[in-house]
């Protein structure tokens, strides 16, 4: 059989962001996939040279629009560690609340895009309609919809009052009911299962070996979540990871669907235990970050890693960001061979690729 090389991307209807996959096809089946990255590199890490470590918060938030809170949270935790700042307990709980809100909206966005990738337009619209309510909650509590800019070094900038939290909880009840209404469609529908079950299977050994992270790893039956390390207030909230054993696209979408609901539970738990007090620790002007640290947090897509190095000046010496999609590309290349070309979009989207994150 003769080989054909098909370029998949960088522009493709199913891809929200540009990634190029060079697919070698034999008789409609993929035999090899070679990725090509670098279409949206912006050099944000380099900006640490010209922006001081406070201004870098707004820069790292722009690494990824969908999980801006979590990027800023990771960066702030790293700098706080370098400076030896103690974050007030209320701020730690609020950070959990906002990062879980972001996880819900990110998963809903992905579930919609995933439904769209196999042509289920109406399901896509339903998920995005629900997501819009989360964006409203973000705007009401922090001031902005997407890039909420709420984390600062030493705590958070906004302090929602009791009335606002009560409003937030009623809105969350609506969101939860609406997500549950879509459960039978997403997890039991024939058309959904036809396109996802058994597609792009990744065994748990392979997932672990290739360093998969996030829902890709948990969809393959490995119970590993960075939130188990107990950063911010997760250690006090009895967090348990969501795990599925299928290892295929369906298992990954199930993990994300259940995680969205689990995140809503986490927000409720965080609000019910929210301590009173300050939300922002005072930072002394003279203590600039010095030394180096590695900070890990859980993004909606998986483990996010920041390496920070300070030299006792306003500007950090080095900011290195490793995003979850970067870790999930090797597992994707193992999933693709053997698939029909028509399944490639669905499987590619199942790792939740965030390319501008990856290229920074």
């Amino acid at each position, binding site marked *: 059989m003769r080989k054909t090389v098909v370029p998949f991307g960088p522009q493709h209807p199913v891809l929200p962001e540009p990634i190029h996959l060079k697919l070698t096809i034999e008789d409609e089946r993929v035999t090899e996939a070679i990725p090509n990255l670098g279409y949206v590199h912006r050099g944000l890490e380099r900006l640490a040279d010209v922006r001081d470590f406070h201004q870098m918060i707004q820069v790292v938030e722009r690494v990824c629009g969908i999980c801006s809170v979590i990027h800023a949270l990771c960066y702030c935790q790293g700098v706080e560690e370098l400076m030896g700042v103690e974050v007030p307990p209320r701020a730690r709980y609020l950070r959990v609340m906002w990062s879980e809100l972001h996880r819900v909206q990110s998963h809903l966005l992905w579930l919609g895009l995933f439904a769209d990738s196999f042509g289920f337009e109406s399901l896509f619209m339903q998920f995005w309609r629900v997501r819009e309510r989360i964006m409203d909650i973000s705007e009401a509590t922090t001031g902005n919809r997407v890039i909420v800019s709420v984390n600062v070094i030493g705590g958070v900038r906004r302090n929602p009052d009791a009335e606002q939290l009560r409003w937030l909880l009623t809105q969350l009840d609506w969101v939860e009911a609406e997500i549950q209404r879509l459960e039978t*469609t997403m997890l039991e*529908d024939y058309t959904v299962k036809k396109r996802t079950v058994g597609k792009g299977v990744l065994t748990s050994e392979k997932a672990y070996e290739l360093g998969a992270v996030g829902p890709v790893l948990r969809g393959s039956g490995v119970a590993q979540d960075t939130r188990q390390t107990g950063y911010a207030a997760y250690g006090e909230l009895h967090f348990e990871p969501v795990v599925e054993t299928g290892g295929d696209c369906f298992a990954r979408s199930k993990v994300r669907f259940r995680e969205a609901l689990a995140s809503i539970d986490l927000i409720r738990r965080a609000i019910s235990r929210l301590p009173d007090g300050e939300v922002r620790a005072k930072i002394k002007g003279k203590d600039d970050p010095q030394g180096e640290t590695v900070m890990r947090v859980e993004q909606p897509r998986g483990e996010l890693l920041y390496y920070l190095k300070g030299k006792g000046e306003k500007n950090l010496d080095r900011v290195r960001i490793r995003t979850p999609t970067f870790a999930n590309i090797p597992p994707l290349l193992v999933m693709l061979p053997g698939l029909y070309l028509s399944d490639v979009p669905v499987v590619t989207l199942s790792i939740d690729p965030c390319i501008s994150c990856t290229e920074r």
Partner: protein
Amino acid sequence: MFRMTPNIMRNLVVKKSTRRYPYEVREPFDKARGELINSVERCIFCGLCESKCPSRCIEVDKQAYKWNYDPFACVYCGVCVDVCPSKSLHQKTQYRKPVAERLTISLQGQPRKKAKDKEKGKEKEAPAAEPGAEPSPPPAAAGTDD
């Protein structure tokens, strides 16, 4: 099969999820971070907003008492509002309307009287002047240039 059908039937009777946007606009939230406004009569031209701005969209000319702002480079993070010592900066809850041409907002302030001068002035004019009243009228001149 047909798992979506009840949802579709329900959507026939419930309210629409979308708005006819330019004609119907949702009320902004109380704490939304919208358009950045500088009440230049209160501005002391300290330059803190300029040094803290992560996108470097503000330029303060301390000698000429000029406050220049590029609303298209602004990311509406609100850091300048938080650090402003004279509270002359604030953000509206409404977003800036889209425009077809790029513009820079340039505000001209007036030099503040130094504390010593003020005291002298008060001594001369004596009890008539109210303590809270600002002596100079708002000289704000909003000009636009590219």
